[in-house]
């Protein structure tokens, strides 16, 4: 009687399309990641507990206020009274604009009040005070 060789089943996952899948993932990460270096002032933001995330990263304008009272928007220094025109322009371009105020915790409220007034005149009313989480 002849012995029959048992046929061995070879199970393998096809890996030919693996690079394609991985490349697709890479493209996703490359496109979705925003390499944004913050161009602002040296500040220490105040802490808060009940914080909410900004809905988008796109419709945001940042105002940096240092404890020395310097105001920086897009890497340029401004006087408090010129915030209005800068923000008005930004607001016209993007009606969904949210203004993120990144102020040092030691800034006096009179400066913040002035910024509020300028923003109201520029009709940029949605404001977010940037904070650190506790």
């Amino acid at each position, binding site marked *: 009687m002849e012995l029959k060789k048992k046929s061995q089943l070879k199970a393998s996952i096809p890996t030919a399309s693996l690079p394609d899948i991985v490349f697709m993932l890479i493209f996703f990460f490359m496109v979705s990641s925003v390499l944004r270096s913050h161009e602002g002032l040296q500040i220490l933001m*105040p802490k*808060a507990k*009940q914080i909410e995330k*900004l809905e988008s990263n796109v419709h945001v304008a940042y105002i940096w206020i240092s404890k020395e009272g310097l105001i920086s928007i897009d890497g340029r220094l401004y006087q408090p009274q010129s915030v209005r025109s800068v923000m008005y322009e930004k607001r016209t371009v993007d009606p969904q604009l949210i203004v993120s105020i990144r102020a040092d915790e030691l800034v*006096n*409220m*009179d400066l*913040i009040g002035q910024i509020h007034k300028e923003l109201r005149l520029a009709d940029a009313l949605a*404001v977010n005070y940037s904070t650190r989480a506790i």
Partner: protein
Amino acid sequence: MGLVRKKVRIAEIPSGSLADIAFLLLIFFMVATTIDMDKGIGIVLPSAQDSEIEMSKKNITSILIDPRGTVLMDEKEVSIKDIKAKVEALQLQNPKMVFSVKAHPLTKYRTYIEVLDQLKQAKTRVISIAE
């Protein structure tokens, strides 16, 4: 004379390690990407054209902050961490209550944010920023 068959040369780039290279790149991007979402306290400022709205006094609680960080709520001193409980109680009594926050010009921004944080924690509907 036998004919010698010409050898067909096949030039191929080895693609076995392509997946490894791609994975390496992928891991680099995943590590280097910081998904840093901005977080903060959101408010909506009143429009400049808005005329003053008349409100009955009993629907307004004024919160005053002085330069030393003392908080007066309806002219009574409260410590910042008690604001939440007081505000919650006031809202239960009167759901229409509006909280008006006013800070002295020399108040530190930190104190102002602490007060706003307490109000937000108490799920306040309307916060008015007085100037």
